[in-house]
């Protein structure tokens, strides 16, 4: 059965390593914070200027001056720090953040990503996404395998304006975990009960299936 958004987040959380600083994008990536594996300590950076983000505040304890990059009210953990936007992107561009998780509209088999613009229809802007994808060594895209119209989001080439080129290394969708290398999507894991055939059918880009593909385990 395909994963829901929480399932995707939970699977991505397994990629976390002790001691990492992590930037989580808006949407599914934000949910990753709810599934940090036991015994592992990570710290969350938000590009609007905070390191050591904590959970949402209790009602009545919201602070208008304390938000994340999604403009949501947040709290901070012990050892948190605040800084300006230039310093925040110094952390990102300077590769001090070990993992970036973000959403996408399209990902191509060579690791291109598009997530900021639909010409003539929607232009919200790239926010920090272009800096994040151009800088980070370790980028995981969290998204549904197909869009609402049922069209694959894992493509031979992106059709939408790009956010970054050749930068995505791993994609976790509701159906699968895929690694991008040698110009193709390499299938690593299937969602529980989802067949290789279904993944193949819903992947427009080149899919490499090597040997037996295990199910994700939680």
């Amino acid at each position, binding site marked *: 059965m395909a994963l829901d958004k929480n399932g995707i987040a939970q699977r991505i959380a397994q990629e976390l390593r002790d001691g990492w600083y992590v930037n989580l994008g808006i949407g599914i990536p934000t949910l990753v914070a709810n599934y940090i594996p036991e015994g592992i300590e990570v710290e969350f950076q938000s590009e609007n200027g905070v390191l050591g983000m904590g959970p949402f505040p209790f009602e009545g304890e919201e602070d208008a001056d304390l938000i994340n990059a999604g*403009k949501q009210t947040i709290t901070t953990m012990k050892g948190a720090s605040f800084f*300006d*936007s230039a310093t925040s992107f110094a952390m990102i561009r300077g590769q001090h953040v070990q993992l970036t998780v973000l959403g996408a509209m399209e990902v191509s088999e060579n690791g291109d990503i598009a997530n900021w613009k639909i010409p003539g229809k929607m*232009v919200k*802007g790239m926010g*920090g996404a272009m800096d994040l994808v151009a800088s980070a060594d370790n980028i995981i895209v969290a998204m549904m395998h197909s869009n609402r119209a049922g069209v694959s989001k894992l493509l031979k080439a992106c059709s939408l304006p790009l956010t970054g080129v050749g930068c995505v290394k791993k994609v976790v969708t509701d159906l699968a975990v895929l690694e991008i290398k040698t110009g193709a999507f390499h299938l690593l894991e299937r969602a529980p009960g989802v067949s290789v055939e279904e993944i193949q059918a819903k992947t427009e880009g080149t899919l490499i299936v090597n040997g037996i593909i295990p199910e994700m385990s939680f």
Partner: protein
Amino acid sequence: MNKVVNTVSEAVHGIKDNMTLMLGGFGLCGIPENSIAELVRKGISGLTCISNNAGVDDFGLGLLLQKKQIKKMISSYVGENDEFERQMLSGELEVDLIPQGSLAERCRAGGAGIPAFYTPAGFGTEVAEGKEVREFNGKPHILEHALHADYAIVKAWKGDTEGNLVFKATARNFNPMMAMAGKITIAEVEELVPAGTLKPNEIHTPGIFVQRIFQGARFEKRIEQRTTRTK
């Protein structure tokens, strides 16, 4: 060096039609709301506004957009504003979208006398069109230029009479770099204190970057996405 002006009207004195402004803030967090209200009241138009976001329909820069006082926006993310999207898609509003980190760095560069720098952000995208590309350490980078403004308008938590500023939490965001990059920088603060009150070690923006400072009459500090958990 006393930088205090008594009213918001005095603070924005000299801002004229068709000027370029920088405005601090991220979303509605840390925006100079008193100065924005005054610009709306004065009806100054044809403005080019450099600001990470464009407010929401009825608050922040959205108020200036409603009145069509803005000719051009230079921002990284404008996704919370229907009127903005309408004006942009209809071509009434010029928009220059810039990666957030490049926007921050370009403001800092403007204030720091660095005319241009290389960044990997945006390579291979629309953002790189017409820009020089150069490889460093085997990785392509694009050349980005400094940003400057006739006036920078920032919002701080505390400020002293000499223009020294301290920001609170994530309301700091773009304010320090924009303070550096304005020909004239106006700071509105929640609390104006005498010189010597702020510890020299804890000042975020030294007064040299600020030409005018005043205590805002009222701060609504609206929350854009109130998000809570249950006990």
